């Protein structure tokens, strides 16, 4: 019998363990960003500088362009940097370095170089943090040729996908959720999760429901409500947004003939539109999207709530699609 390697970890502890394992296995892996030596503002680097030293877990100035750009230079020179952006909203200060440099380098220079970096930029609504700390911008990066986009929803996936991201050799935009850090769950540290593979969370024939990141929680709650009404939902956690798992999603849509895509991001031109259009083209199924209204996230609870997609709204959208 194999040695059991499962333990209960938080979403942030799972990330720390993933980086620790990769740093142990590969001396080329380094971390750079603001506050990483103190463990990062979410504890997502806790203890790493104490273990691996300040030369591999590098505290930096508040210089997002230089953090991302130096990550590109380090990668070209043979390292495999974890580039810490604090939150996706701040990563916008490093966009030339990500979009014009990291994502383009390999192609533009005819394959002379590689940029194996993982840029961590937590996304989503951060409670009571208002418009500049609450964005979900994953669709921007999915639109960008040259990068992988990952958005894990569980401690296990954060562990396994972060390791996969660090091993893959491509630039990766790694979007954890700003309020999932304390989420606890079983983590098998031998479990590999390949990039580009979705996870079927529950099975059903009435409807395919696709989501990712923290929005999976409201989707699961909506599925419970619908199950009580006799509606069995095929719930899929996309996990990797590019390359996305067309095979799993389209097979489900072909079976259920109905697809609802739900995301925390603004619905207009969101990634849900791409999945819905692809499913309709490939299978002819009925499709619907559910995302936030096209408004900045407000501060007061009553305003912030207008940007949130709750379980009730998801269940209602599912019923409408079935009607």
């Amino acid at each position, binding site marked *: 019998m194999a040695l059991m390697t499962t333990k209960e970890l938080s979403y942030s502890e799972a990330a720390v363990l993933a980086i620790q394992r990769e740093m142990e296995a590969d001396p080329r892996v380094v971390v750079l960003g603001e506050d990483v030596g103190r463990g990062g503002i979410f504890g997502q680097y806790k203890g790493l500088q104490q273990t691996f030293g300040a030369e591999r877990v590098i505290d930096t100035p508040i*210089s997002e362009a230089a953090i991302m*750009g130096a990550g590109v*230079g*380090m990668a070209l*020179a043979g390292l495999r940097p974890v580039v810490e952006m604090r939150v996706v909203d701040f990563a916008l200060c490093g966009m*030339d370095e990500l979009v014009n440099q990291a994502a383009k380098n*390999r192609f533009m*220079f005819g394959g*002379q170089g590689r940029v194996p970096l993982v840029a961590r930029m937590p996304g989503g609504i951060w409670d009571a943090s208002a418009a500049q700390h609450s964005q979900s911008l994953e669709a921007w990066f999915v639109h960008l040729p040259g990068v992988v986009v990952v958005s894990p929803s569980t401690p296990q996936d954060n562990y396994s996908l972060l390791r996969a991201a660090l091993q893959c050799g491509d630039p990766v935009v790694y979007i954890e959720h700003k309020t999932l850090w304390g989420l606890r769950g079983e983590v098998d540290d031998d479990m590999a999760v390949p990039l580009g593979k979705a996870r079927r969370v529950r099975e059903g024939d009435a409807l395919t429901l696709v989501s990712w990141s923290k929005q999976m929680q409201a989707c699961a709650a909506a599925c419970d409500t619908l199950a009580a009404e006799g509606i069995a939902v095929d719930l899929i956690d996309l996990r990797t947004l590019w390359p996305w798992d067309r095979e799993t999603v389209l097979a489900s849509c072909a079976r259920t003939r109905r697809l609802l895509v739900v995301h925390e991001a603004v619905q207009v031109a969101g990634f849900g539109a791409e999945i819905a259009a692809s499913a309709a083209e490939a299978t002819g199924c009925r499709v619907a999207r559910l995302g936030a209204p096209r408004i900045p996230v407000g501060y007061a609870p009553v305003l912030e709530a207008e940007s949130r997609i709750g379980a009730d709204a998801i269940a209602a959208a599912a019923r409408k699609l079935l009607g």
Partner: protein
Amino acid sequence: MGSSIPPSGAGQALYRTMVRIRAFENAAEAASQGGVSAYGQQAGGSAKVRGPLHLSTGQEAVPAGVCAHLRTSDYLTSTHRGHGHTLAKGADLTRMICELFGKATGFNGGKGGSMHIADFSVGMLGANGVVAAGLPIAVGAAHAQKILQKKGDITVCFFGDGAINRGPFLEALNWARVYDLPVLFVCEDNRWSATTASGPMTAGEGASVRAASMDIAATQVDGNDVFGVHETAARLVAEVRGGGGPRLLHALTYRVKGHVSVDVAAYRDPAELAAALETDPIARARGHLLAQGVSVATLDAIENAARDEVDTALAIADAAPWPEPGDAFTDVQTTGAGQWH
């Protein structure tokens, strides 16, 4: 001229580097006419060098003087005006012409052209289409050299006077000092930011003063005096190699051509250009080498060899194959390769 001329062989090598850059760019300029729609010109479709072509004509002394001190294992980052840096770092001239022609045999397989000319095999990590974008990449490469303990290897970062008004200039210089990285910043101050004079757009005294404010020793040189650049760069490169941390070389030069090859730069005072042509770095170096006793025949032979090399390269590039359409789908990314929609 206050600088000392190096021994005859080294002086001729610098002359040869400059002459090769000039010959390369003259040929590229001729092949680019009608190649881009800009500055009132229309692209005709028959030009062999298409798209924007940024020429460093008149600035050759800076890359020649600096790169003479570099090893293959040193890194270099460049700008949109990067032919000189690439040649001086040791890239093959023929493959550069092939890339400008968009041919499969170019360094980038036709995927980059002039603005992305690069030869990673000699440490030349790329020209760049975005002003100041090379600075953070350079400090990252230098940071890797420090972490990987490549003792003695350095990174040289070329940028223009326009770049010092972008944020990454400040972020990168601060970074280099904070971590004491082996990087030599070289500001090629050609006085023009696209079609706008840099002076009125720049507060204070420019690159040197800004570097000094971050505790990075800066040295200003006459960037059209190749022997002076060579002498100063020797000291700065040695200091950086020796672990002294970052340095900045502020080379004052002049952009003889327009922003791109089809820009006739009619917005400039002709007297300004005429004065600059009086200090042409190649003519000056030639005069000094002759005075040193090098024969006319020797220098003519260097120039003729450069022209012959370029002519041969043009013919090779002409005959070289285009990339295959399918090459548009290679080297995008490994994860998810083949998934385009």
